[in-house]
């Protein structure tokens, strides 16, 4: 025989299940069905490179230094477990810490007077796991992209690390590419020749912003 107390208990249980389902749906909506943007011009960034000479091994390494204004332009979007977007990097502040080397690098090789920027377009990144802007971490997952450098465009691929905490995102790309593919001459200086292979590490840290919902009715 059913009692009023039993009915009330069943209602309570149903409410708990429903609310918990709703909570999970909220989480799901928060992470996967919504898209998030990173405005790169407001991000902290670190763009580093390294190339080596062989058989006389020297390691030439440096970074693209931050100016008063950001050297990065563009935005990245995370939606449906994928990352997309494009980054434009100013090259005129590329430095190795050795003044003469910097001068030659920019004048003779990167030719920054003609090609002031490089552009990296993320073409394919599937973020492993369920992305959440509040707390998420994924290490060394693969990505593919297109790099425009020295007026030439080439496909690049490598690995990426992604972390979020309280809507702050840290993203790091690591890839190799060959300078000669972009029509850049092999650097040499007084008989020392460098390898064409460059290892690039590019990292950003910035605030995630909820992307405007395209399906939302206009007010």
């Amino acid at each position, binding site marked *: 025989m059913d009692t009023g107390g039993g009915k009330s208990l069943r209602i309570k249980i149903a409410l708990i299940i429903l609310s918990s389902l709703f909570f999970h749906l909220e989480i799901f909506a928060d992470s996967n069905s919504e898209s998030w943007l990173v405005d790169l011009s407001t991000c902290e960034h670190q763009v580093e490179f390294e190339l080596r000479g062989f*058989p*006389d*091994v020297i390691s030439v390494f440096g970074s693209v230094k931050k100016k008063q204004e950001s050297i990065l332009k563009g935005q990245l979007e995370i939606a449906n477990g994928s990352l997309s977007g494009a980054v434009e990097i100013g090259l005129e502040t590329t430095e190795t*810490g050795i003044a003469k080397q910097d001068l030659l690098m920019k004048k003779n090789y990167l030719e920054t007077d003609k090609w002031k920027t490089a552009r990296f377009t993320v073409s394919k990144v599937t973020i492993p796991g369920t992305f959440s802007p509040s707390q998420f971490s994924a290490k060394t997952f693969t990505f593919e992209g297109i790099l425009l450098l020295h007026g030439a465009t080439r496909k690049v691929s490598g690995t990426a690390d992604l972390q979020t905490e309280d809507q702050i995102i840290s993203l790091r790309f690591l890839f190799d590419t060959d300078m000669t593919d972009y029509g850049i001459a092999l650097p040499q200086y*007084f*008989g020392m020749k460098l390898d064409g292979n460059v290892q690039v590490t590019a990292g950003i840290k910035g605030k995630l912003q909820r992307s405007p919902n395209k399906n939302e009715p206009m007010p």
Partner: protein
Amino acid sequence: MNPCLRKFASLLLFLGCFQLHGYPEMVRHGYLSCTACHFNANGGGILTPFGRAISGDVLSTWSSEGETKFLYGVSPPEWLNLGGDLRTVQIYQKNAAFTKGRFILMQADLEAAAQLEKWTLVASLGVQQVPEKGMDPFEVLSRRFYLSYRPAPQWIVQAGKFNQAFGINTPDHVISTKRGLGWDEGTETLNLQGVLLNKHFDTFLTLNFGRPDDASLDLEKGIALRGRYYAGKRARVGASYFFGGNGQFSRHVYGPFAEIGFAKEIVLLLEIDLQNKHPVNQLSQFGGVNYAKLDYEWLQGLHTYVTQEYVKLDFNDPNSLSYSFGIGAQFFPRPHLEINASWQKRKKISVSNDFEDFAWVMLHFYL
């Protein structure tokens, strides 16, 4: 020394002849293999054109176009490279028993490297002062001569007179890991050396034949093996092993070392070696040495550093202990010039339980 030789020595001094030593501290700039800057696979000695160029770009505080060239502007034919060193030192030593100062001409050498395709011939000729020789303290010598063959970019075979590759190759030959182990200046031997170079490591195997041309020196013969791994952009870590001996003893010497550039301004050199020594008709000794140097470059070419040294060649004998702590400053104002000054507090238990002061100022002019 006869009058002709004395004139020759004076001429070399006048010319400022020299022989540039390796600076392992350059690892902080990413210069990982010695062959980038030196013809000698193990570093030191005559510079390659690249080494000469970066002596202005990276090593010195100020420089101008062309200043790094031999004799400030001489351009020999492409197959020939010329160099040399003049190095003098003023030493000051003070302890409970005595205070003394001494000026020494350490080196006045000319060195040349001639290249023909895969072959390179290197030879130096110079004078040095040996104060122990009293009234006639100068002697003419060739510190280094060798023929090297590079059949492929990653292989070098080198035969001649030079220092075997062991540990960190620093020009400071009085330190614990050099003098402390008996590898002071003047211990270059006749060697056959094979070198394998890779983008991430190098390996040196040296067959040391001692000095058969001068039996009075009784220098060791043996075999040395050293491997270095290029750990990242500006660091090398490695290990060395030597087995050899002379008429007095045989020994195994082995240990790790590290040359770590933490940033382009900061570099640490660290070497620890153990020695198993077996003197003829005496008990064996087991001991060790270590050397550490931490260098900071305040502005390009101006350095200060601290050093620490330890020697105890017989762990069972308290009297074999000596150790020191030091500070120093090194300045490369312009290409061709180096000033290095060091002050140490050091203690040698077999001599005294008190510390003594040991200081030196070294002037180095490299052509």
